[in-house]
């Protein structure tokens, strides 16, 4: 079909997200209206995400979440025009569960399947929800820490972690400190709450290497101190946040100065942190750029972002044949062409 006709045509895309601990289903119209965005999170009994258990959870809740999304959008399966799914990066067992659901639905309904890059989807939904056009994006979550900006056909990575992700660093520290995972309250939020009460800055490793940063040494040092017990937990949470957030802010500022773009977009689960928001707001202002935070519902992993990015790709003739719909665990954002951006 001609691109022009595709752009005019109205339709509905179901997006399935299952790259880590959330199983999400979202429905978006071709014009970008979000009709539904439902999800269900796997909460480990102890420790971090167990990939096999997360996949088991996804398989168990898939039909419930899909039904919720369809009924909240007021649609029947036959109304859907395309199915998009998160093809990577992420945890293999989790991704495969979502991909299986997506393939089955697309085959049964005889409609096109579109594989979407999870990181691209985070940026695209952020642009849709905040109306930014060409931002420097800081994407910080449990699995990702990267600064990207669009340049010649792709989102290029201007800085990233050399080892662990920011959310991972905060989560592991929280567990080492004995904080418990509660429904609806992520561990990062627990740290943020304690950090507000912290007064003394404990000196910890600050590792920026060129455009990149490293958080593993910071985590180890903070963990050693928490077990030693000389500093209050409030002070440690405060110091951990200040060091880690200063590092990502410094790297974001470098990308901003380098690209001279005029918008900063903050997304991912850690985007909810008020202190991180405040730091980024300062650098945005210094570089005459606007500062934008993606609303939490769309900053964490969600189905609507997959649906919307699926539509952008589909409109440019990108579909994923079933035989090429295998998941890509380490699919870097800078390996994906984004022809919908001029």
């Amino acid at each position, binding site marked *: 079909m001609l691109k022009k006709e595709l752009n005019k045509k109205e339709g509905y895309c179901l997006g399935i997200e299952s790259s880590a601990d959330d199983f999400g289903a979202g429905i978006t119209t071709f014009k970008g209206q979000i009709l539904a965005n439902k999800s269900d999170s796997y909460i480990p009994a102890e420790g971090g995400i167990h990939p096999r258990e997360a996949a088991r959870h996804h398989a168990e809740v898939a039909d419930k979440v899909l039904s919720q999304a369809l009924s909240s959008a007021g649609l029947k399966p036959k109304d859907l025009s395309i199915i998009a799914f998160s093809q990577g990066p992420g945890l293999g067992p989790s991704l495969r569960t979502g991909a299986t659901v997506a393939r089955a639905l697309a085959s049964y309904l005889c409609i096109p399947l579109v594989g979407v890059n999870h990181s691209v989807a985070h940026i695209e939904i952020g642009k849709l929800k905040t109306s930014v056009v060409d931002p420097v994006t800081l994407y910080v979550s449990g699995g990702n820490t990267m600064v990207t900006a669009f340049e010649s056909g792709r989102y290029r990575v201007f800085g990233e972690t050399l080892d662990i992700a920011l959310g991972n660093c905060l989560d592991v520290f929280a567990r080492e400190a004995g904080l418990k995972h509660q429904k609806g309250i992520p561990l990062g939020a627990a740290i943020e709450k304690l950090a507000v009460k912290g007064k003394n800055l404990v*000196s910890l490793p600050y590792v920026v290497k060129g455009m990149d940063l490293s958080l593993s040494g910071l985590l180890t040092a903070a963990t050693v101190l928490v077990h030693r017990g000389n500093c209050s937990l409030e002070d440690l949470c405060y110091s951990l946040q200040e060091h880690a957030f*200063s590092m990502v802010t410094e790297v974001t500022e470098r990308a901003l100065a380098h690209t001279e773009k005029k918008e900063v977009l903050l997304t991912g689960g850690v985007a909810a942190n008020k202190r991180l928001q405040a730091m980024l707001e300062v650098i945005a202002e210094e570089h005459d750029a606007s500062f934008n935070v993606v609303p939490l519902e769309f900053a964490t992993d969600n189905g609507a972002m997959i649906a919307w990015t699926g539509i952008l790709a589909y409109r440019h003739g990108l579909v994923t044949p079933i035989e090429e719909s295998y998941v890509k665990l380490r699919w*870097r954002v800078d390996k994906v062409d984004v022809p919908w951006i001029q």
Partner: protein
Amino acid sequence: MDTIAEPTLFKKGAEASLYLADWHGKRVIIKNRIPKKYRPTALDERIRSYRTVHEPQLMHEAKVAGVFTPLIYMVNVAESFIVMEYIEGQQIKQLLNKAPQEKRHEFCIEIGASIGKLHNYGLIHGDLTTSNMIRTPEGKIFFVDFGLGEKNIELEAQGVDLHLMKRALQSTHYQFWEECFKNVLCGYTSVRGLETTEKVYEKIREIERRGRYVEERKQ
């Protein structure tokens, strides 16, 4: 900085502001690390004074290693600024994309050789991007901005250093980053020898595999 006549803002970087000024009849660059309001004062002062002290030391040692760097005229730690020689020339970042292939190869080999000299001497630049390299009209390539550098003889640090060079080429010169990086490694090999270069190259691959989402990563 009050004692210096009429500094004019030359470039506002992410970390520091560069001023062009006249200092005792010399054309100089004043690099002033400005306080960063986003981070706590104690942390900010620690980072700024560390970088202000270390940068001139490393720039001096780089000269001993045989790499062109600006002369240092003065350091003020309290106000975190450095007065250094102004280098007339063009950034490699600008030259590389418009240079003919032959010139591009020549520049990259030269850059690789300079990195090799730094590493042989136990120096890490810490921020190898093409905007931190200036080519003078006489054809010398100067390295600037050692603010993130360190003294380190470990393969790990050398690997990260070259990995950053590769990443900078990928993001800024994506059209021909592969041939550029190949030539950087050629120049590097000419200084450090094949055996050492292979070890460093293996280290780069190991560093890349450590990254979270990398095709080649081992399970």
